[in-house]
């Protein structure tokens, strides 16, 4: 006899499964199609004409695209490094010290996360104009405004992740270290930082993915010489979406996906010590 599904056993009822399927299709079908059509042997993205890797080749040969891609990577690496340091310091400061205005600072720290990107983009644009930031610098110095913009919106994410990690830190570990003869600095490097590490790595990867695929803020802070990958793809699409764009996007998806998976792995809570 067939076992009857329990009342709360939703996973086994056909209509729940069907609904779930619809949700997945809605969410992922466009991406699957995008990836699939990057292998399509056709100039247009409408009919399937057979498998080819031509468009990956074309994308690689497209030097403005590669240039934009290089820009994106350089921006991502630099802004990640700096926002990881700033974010970690903010987290440490908020966790460690009690001072007047701490709650306010904690709130302000989350502001770049909640503020609409478009507002931040315009704000940065106005800001760089106002202070007269030179826009005739050589590469890679001309990426400065974009890097600064990316740091501004990604370090709060790092701070939040690292802060969450520090919540579980037993302060007596630091005391024990000093008790055993270690200085403040030795304690920080040998005890506190190793504990923060999963948070630091996860935060850094988060900052990196955010930077790599940011469009809005980058759009406002980039000039004609400093296109990033997302901005370049946007300009290519305006002349029609060729499989070349699909190929480039697929590469970006792959990079983002890998980074996200690694970040999630590292964020998994460790076994209780």
């Amino acid at each position: 006899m067939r076992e009857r599904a329990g009342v709360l056993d939703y996973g086994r009822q056909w209509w729940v499964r069907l609904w779930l399927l619809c949700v997945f299709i809605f969410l992922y079908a466009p991406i699957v199609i995008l990836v699939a059509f990057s292998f399509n042997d056709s100039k247009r993205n409408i009919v399937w004409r057979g498998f080819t890797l031509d468009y990956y080749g074309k994308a690689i040969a497209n030097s403005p695209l590669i240039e934009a891609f290089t820009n994106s990577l350089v921006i991502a690496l630099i802004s990640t490094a700096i926002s990881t340091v700033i974010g970690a310091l903010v987290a440490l400061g908020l966790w460690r010290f009690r001072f007047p205005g701490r709650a306010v600072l904690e709130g302000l720290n989350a502001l770049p996360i909640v503020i609409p990107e478009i507002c931040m983009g315009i704000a940065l644009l106005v800001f760089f104009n106002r202070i007269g930031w030179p826009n005739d610098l050589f590469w890679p110095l001309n990426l400065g405004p974009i890097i600064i913009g990316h740091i501004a919106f990604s370090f709060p994410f790092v701070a939040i992740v690292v802060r969450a990690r520090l919540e579980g830190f037993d302060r007596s570990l630091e005391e024990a270290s000093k008790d055993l003869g270690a200085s403040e600095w030795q304690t920080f490097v040998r005890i506190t930082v190793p504990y923060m590490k999963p948070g630091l790595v996860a935060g850094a990867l988060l900052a990196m993915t955010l930077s790599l695929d940011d469009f809005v803020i980058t759009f406002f802070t980039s000039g004609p010489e400093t296109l990033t990958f997302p901005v370049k793809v946007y300009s290519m699409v305006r002349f029609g979406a060729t499989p070349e764009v699909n190929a480039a996007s697929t590469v970006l998806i792959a990079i983002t996906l890998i980074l996200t998976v690694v970040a999630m792995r590292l964020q998994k809570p460790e076994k209780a010590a």
Partner: protein
Amino acid sequence: MIVRMENLSKRFGEFVAVDNVSLDIPERSFFALLGPSGCGKTTLLRMIGGFEHPSRGRLSIDGEDMTGVPPNRRPVNMVFQSYAVFPHMSVRRNIAYGLEVTGVNRAEIGPRVEEAISMVRLDGMADRRPDQLSGGQRQRVALARALVKRPKLLLLDEPLSALDKKLREEMQLELRRLQQEVGITFVIVTHDQEEALGMASDIAVMEKGRILQIAPPRDLYEHPKKRFVAEFIGASNLFECDVLSGEGNRARVRAAELGEVDVERADESTRDGILMIRPEKLRLDMRGSIPVEGEVLIDVTVDQIAYYGDLSFVYLHTDSGRRLTCSRYNINRVGEADPPSGHRCKLGIHPDDLLLVGE
């Protein structure tokens, strides 16, 4: 004296955690700071360790003034209540840590770590990580990590509170063995009077930031000076009384149930106070036999019996309604049964067992 405290106080805002404490800890002793939670014992210990700075007073260790000396420069090591074993290091790395950070010669570290590992009986566990150890083993790591530094003083903050009863008894013996083996002073903080009585050579009883009495375990139990000490350590029965006269460590008192009796007082300055007697010193006379020489007999009614195997607690009340507790060892396997509740009988109290304690 390995530790000397002079008029030491510590305030946290309005709260006075340690109130004008002067205390000397003798060398090679196993010294216990005993008191209820919030009595300031941990703050006192943390001041010796250098984790809290005294608001007033002076603290010296081995003759050296410790004012402004940070924890990493003190000849003292601590075993934390949570053990604080470094989770990202193996047992061996944990124990070597204190030697590495202070720049001890590499060739010297290895043998010293191995020695410490076998001293706390963790042989074969050196490469394990803390999450693969039991609570008791983690505590041994914390002990080895502190002892490998060869401190002049080892501080232990409630070291046994996280262990279950059996393990706790085992570790009590283990700590005493270690203390005798390494021959340094141990200062332990505990709220468990049995733990303090069983391990320490000297006990300081604390209440509300002050030290009430410092004495070896037997003295503390048999000759408490204050009512708080009498009640905190072991069980006690109390009788209000009037002090008629006093000389030296003897006093003549009058109590409603007992009449006029001559009793001991541990504190010569006790002018008025309360009479105390331990439950095991009350003699429950169920058959109305002849009184023991010098004993005062009073009529009591049995309320309840609590049977604990080795001994039973008999809860009684006198005719005037005073509640008393009497303990009896169950020495014979087939012996006298405990009296039923409601049973009326005599209770023998010998004045030699009574003690006048200050309020």
